[in-house]
């Protein structure tokens, strides 16, 4: 055994493509399933939440305006980068969730595959849920999905990595930007994911990761007038109700918590929950018997 002293990592937030500490200067202790100290994580404040919303809003135009093909390539790149850091995440997930190395490896593999799955969806979802509507008149009428905007995501509390990616990837696949609150007691895989995203061509601000007390960070996000939607996956019943009430102030789209087996192949619900439908009418005119009338 080497007697070399290891280098600890300072876990930081991921906001606007940068790695800031909490503006509050606060941290909290994160321990493994046996109660051993793993690291200190930033204890985000309301101000951190608001800063993250500003970053997410700033990134929305570019990300939602990118081609679906481009977004697919970027998401696939995330999978590639993650694959390269597989060992690191196996260790972090094992520590975070108290899993054996083999089980943690299976979780990380599934997580990489989840990015690949959603990478393939970016340029297909519009064809599946949009299309031309056969209106009774001389109009070409087309419905297309569009991203809702800035989505606040309360990542699942138990599944700190696979669950996290399972709720974040569908939000950004369709062009939304996200402010994500990591699992409260196991935030380290989420904070490390920020490092992967930062090196994966995901533009800064598209995903912003906060750690800390879920209820404390979620309240200002649910009430924030520039947040368009909220995924309550990581909220318990009482918190979910409170946040849904706050979200009504600007009619955020709300995805309520539900039982999800994150090891299963997902459906498209987590994408459609944060999509709007835009329907555009264009006159077609008609070719009359006497010639052109369009």
């Amino acid at each position, binding site marked *: 055994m080497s007697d070399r002293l290891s280098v600890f990592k300072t876990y930081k937030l991921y906001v606007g493509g940068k790695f800031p500490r909490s503006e509050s200067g606060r941290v909290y202790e994160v321990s493994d399933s046996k109660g051993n100290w793993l690291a200190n994580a930033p204890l985000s404040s309301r101000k951190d939440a608001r800063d993250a919303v500003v970053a997410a809003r700033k990134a929305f135009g570019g990300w939602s305006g990118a081609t679906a093909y481009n977004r697919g390539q970027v998401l696939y790149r995330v999978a590639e980068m993650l694959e390269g850091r597989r060992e690191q995440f196996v260790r972090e997930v094992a520590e975070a969730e108290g899993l054996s190395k083999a089980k943690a490896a299976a979780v990380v593999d599934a997580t990489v595959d989840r990015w690949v799955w959603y990478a393939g969806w970016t340029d297909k979802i519009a064809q*599946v849920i949009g299309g031309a*509507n056969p209106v009774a008149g001389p109009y070409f009428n087309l419905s297309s999905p569009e991203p809702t905007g800035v989505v606040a995501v309360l990542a699942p509390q138990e599944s700190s990595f696979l669950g996290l990616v399972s709720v974040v990837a569908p939000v950004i696949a369709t062009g939304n930007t996200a402010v994500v609150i990591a699992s409260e007691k196991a935030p380290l895989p989420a904070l490390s994911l920020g490092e992967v995203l930062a090196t994966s061509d995901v533009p800064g601000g598209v995903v912003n990761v906060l750690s800390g007390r879920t209820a404390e960070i979620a309240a200002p996000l649910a009430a924030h007038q520039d947040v368009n939607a909220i995924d309550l996956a990581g909220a318990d*019943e009482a918190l979910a109700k409170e946040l*849904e009430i706050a979200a009504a102030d600007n*009619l955020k789209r709300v995805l309520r918590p539900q039982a999800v087996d994150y090891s299963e192949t997902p459906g498209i619900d987590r994408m459609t929950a944060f999509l709007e439908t835009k*329907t555009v009418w264009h*006159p077609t005119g008609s070719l009359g018997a006497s010639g052109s009338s369009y």
Partner: protein
Amino acid sequence: MTIEKRSSAFEYAPAPESRSVVDIAPSYGLFIDGEFVEAADGKVFKSISPSTEEVLSEVAQAGTEDVDRAVKAARKAFGTWSALPGSERAKYLFRIARIVQERSRELAVLETLDNGKPIKETRDADLPLVAAHFFYYAGWADKLDHAGFGPAPKPLGVAGQVIPWNFPLLMLAWKIAPALATGNTVVLKPAETTPLSALFFADICRQAGLPKGVVNILPGYGDAGAALVAHPDVNKVAFTGSTAVGKEIARTVAGTKKKLTLELGGKGANIVFDDAPVDQAVEGIVNGIFFNQGQVCCAGSRLLVQESVQDELLDSLKRRLSTLRLGDPLDKNTDIGAINSAEQLARITALAERGEAEGAERWSPACELPSSGYWFAPTLFTNVTQAHTVARDEIFGPVLSVLTFRTPDEAVAKANNTQYGLSAGIWTEKGSRILAVANKLRAGVVWSNTFNKFDPTSPFGGYKESGFGREGGRHGLEAYLDV
């Protein structure tokens, strides 16, 4: 230029549609479990004709106890209704569509009397769309496996639906047709100022042989709507109305399993570029804000006109407005009917006064208002800035606020500068500009070189605080399915 009233040589002779096609009873009950019944507490209210203030009928007023009774009836009916083969449910809906078509003149006259809107609108827009909506969703009832929601998607249960007064029967159709097609049962509360067409619809359900309890109609006020939305045995809430009430409903259903769709207010931008065909654009602007007296959630209530064509366009628009005919809604030549209620008239009046007080320039054509009933002349505001109340608040009346822009980017920025996101219009001859601008507008429905077009196959609904969920088309099924 000066606008002169048309010379009497061009006056129209009166051309009233006959009232005799509709027989309004002196009183109506609530429609619960297939029967017309009195309210539990015996309360009634009057429905009046907004164009004359004449009392049309006295209607039972639903209270909390009646809501409970209706939800129980709907719950009881749900088992057998949802278990019917889709093809059978379809046939009931086809029957309803056909009966609506047969009785459409009667219903058009009734709607015009109760709502105040011109007969040419109820006859040519509301009623054909009502029938088409039932016909469209009838066809879905036995094809739900193919709608993209997985195999054999399940209904939710009892749907509590609250609808507004601006398109009473059409909003009923938008709510009831998809709900029944997917196997839900319904308790619907029409607005207190326009309960009659929903009660006539109850009679159509009876004629169609619809099983009792599948559709229940509860005329009443906001308290009945609130009780319906909050009822613990309601599985689905659908509301069309104001954004303020929509937010209240969203708070009420928070923390429950109730599925919610909201179709709320709007402040639609109608954007006219310098290359737009002026005459067509003027027709579209008039249609966008004066259709149904502007009492339309998707109205084009903000005109954004490119600065270089402002004068030409406004001259044409004013000339056109001076030809609009305001008056008896039953007259086939009437363009502008009555405002739906004294309350709504007061709101429009107050907002228009605020517009003047804040410094916008007010203009209306010479226009004689009838001495009884609720009327508001078509009104334009120019010199409007984005900070003005008339550019921000939904007026829900025949009031158009005119703003200008210089570049397409400015047009898009101004169009999107609102809490709402329901509709928008684009007028330009350049195809690529239509597509580019439509792409950037944050609105659920965009009309290019047209306005206020509706179709049962076309999903309708808003972005942002205009609500969520879509009505119409395949998309409209999702709101009533457990998916």
